[in-house]
């Protein structure tokens, strides 16, 4: 893969306060504009930590990263304007309706008026949520919450989207809609960085994947290239198990 590097990660290292073991140990990788990049790894591998650092939630203990040429340490506020974040947990206000939640988050991205209303309506239409617009989040099913959670991070047409396990705990129908939408966004030029435990999903969706384990990148490449490198395995899941082992993780 070649093209403009939109995310450049250099020797990223993170050790949490009070922890003996680093969460990530010197991760370095480039993500190109227009990619759907998958960060794969078992629990505690360092996927969420990496994404959180890139989104500006944590400072790295060492190393650095640049997003669209901007340093994550010194340009945090500017970076926030061009990225969209879909957290692992549903991060919405339970007593507000879907529409009210999205209006609020849209406003925080600087959107308002007709433009915002149009964006929210589009999101509802894509995800089949029109009839749930006035429903309080607390009364919505897990799948609906996930879809609204996703729309909240995409309202401002970000250049780069970070999705932390966006399809966890939802039905097949919702998963298909979400993945199709991500592909559609990617076709329009949006770079998608995504973590998942679903290898089959990553294999179908991602242009490249990085397999992370115990804080380091152990393999990186196009899913087809990885399969070619390991002809003894028929799918990404088996390569993943081969590389990360079968031991249970915390």
């Amino acid at each position, binding site marked *: 893969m070649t093209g403009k590097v939109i995310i450049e990660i250099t020797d990223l290292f993170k050790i*949490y*306060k009070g922890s003996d073991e680093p969460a990530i140990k010197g991760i370095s990788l480039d993500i190109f504009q227009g990619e759907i990049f998958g960060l794969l790894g078992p629990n505690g591998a360092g996927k969420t930590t990496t994404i*959180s650092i890139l*989104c*500006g*939630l*944590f*400072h790295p203990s060492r190393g650095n990263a640049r997003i669209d040429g901007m340093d994550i340490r010194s340009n945090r*506020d500017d970076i*926030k*304007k061009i*990225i969209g*974040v879909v*957290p692992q*947990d*549903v*991060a*919405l*206000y*339970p*007593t*507000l309706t879907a529409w*009210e939640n999205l*209006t*609020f*988050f849209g*406003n*925080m*991205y*600087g959107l*308002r008026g007709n433009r915002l209303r149009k964006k929210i309506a589009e999101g509802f239409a894509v995800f089949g949520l029109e009839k749930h617009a006035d429903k*309080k989040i607390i009364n919505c099913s897990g799948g609906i919450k996930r879809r609204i959670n996703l729309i*909240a*991070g995409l309202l401002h047409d970000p250049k780069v989207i970070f999705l932390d396990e966006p399809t966890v705990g939802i039905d097949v129908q919702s998963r298909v809609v979400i993945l199709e939408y991500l592909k559609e966004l990617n076709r329009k030029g949006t770079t998608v960085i995504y973590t998942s435990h679903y290898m089959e999903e990553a294999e179908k969706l991602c242009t490249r994947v990085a397999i992370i384990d115990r804080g380091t990148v152990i393999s990186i490449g196009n899913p087809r290239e990885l399969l070619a490198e390991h002809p003894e395995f028929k799918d990404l899941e088996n390569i993943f198990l081969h590389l990360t082992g079968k031991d249970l993780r915390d």
Partner: protein
Amino acid sequence: MFRFFSACRKETLILVRDLAGLIILFIMPMIMVVILALVQEQGWNSITKDPSIPVLLVDEDQDTLGAKIEDGLRNSNIFRICKTLDGKKLTREITKEKVGKGDYNIGVIIPKGSTTIIRHKVQVMVTQIVSGIMMPVDNPFLDIQSNDSINILIYFDPGIKGTFKYAFMATMKEYSMFIESSMIFSSLNTELKRMFPQYKPPKMNYKETVYFSEIFPAGKDELAIPSTTQHNVPAWALFAMFFIVIPMSSSMIKEREEGSMIRMFTLPVSYLTIFMAKVSVYAVVCVIQFILMMLAGRYLLPLARIAPLTIGSNYLGIFIMMVISSMAALGFAIAVGTIARTHQQAAAFGSVSVVVLTALGGLWVPVYLMPQVMRNIATWSPLNWAHVGFIDLFLRQATIIDIFPQLAKLLIFFAVTISVALFYRRVNSPLNN
């Protein structure tokens, strides 16, 4: 700026959606102010229309003194006289036992012959006066001595408040003085009539000539008589206002737990904007809550025959004081909400600290009734500053300049608590994890 208004709208919607919580925020403090004013009215002010404090009375005298004391206590409208219990006439022993056990607070024993002793003393005194007029030189009556004294026994329950005990003693002394004066007046008349048959005593009872009116100028057109209402209503309103620490800190912790705060940190908006929106919305809640409690003091308490609240005429000053007091309460709430990690921590620390600040601030017991050490400590409680400010506005016709020291202290408290919260957040930010 529209981000700020959008955040305010979000906070308002969250508050309004929790209708039960909102009712609790507004109605419970009103109920509290009415109930506490009712309870404390008698305890502090001892001005009540219903005779309610039972006094065991053993009148062994069965003459004027006993009758007058009984009338006096009965007419005071504070005490209910009990001369029998379970159909049996009270004795010294029963009275001592009942008060000793705490079944009754006060017992009064008027010894036998009390009136006779007074009469004798008065007689001697009047005789000496009259004989002094008739025999200015070598008056043998001047050598007569009357050393008899009366010892009225008053039993007090050891649990009774000291202030109440002194008030009762003062009342009893007042009655006995009045009775003695009346007897002197009556006896003097009798003696004069005996000496001067043509003398016609005036057909009137001895009446006090010195009266005391408690008047406090509050506004241009109204006079406020100091009452427990004037102390209690602003005191409990401030207590409720500072209790905003519970819903406010709970809302902050909830945002952290629900994950919405994490999303906020990824948005291109400053934390201060979100922070100030929360403060603004909750400040409006505090002000509405305070106004409702003032209205309760003004219009509900009189329905319970308690003096209405008088608020003076400096409405702008009152509004400013309300806003600044709310800010102080919210600053405290934000500090607690930022530092506490769980709802339990916030609720336990928040409620106990508000109770302590209330007690220290002289909102339960007025500062002037506290020992000197506590009076000094009271001057460090933000609730005391706010309370003093409101009392000055309500009762002392204070101007904004007059309450400036209180306003300044409350603003400094707000600035300090907000700074503590921001500093704590900076140090413990996930960024530094």
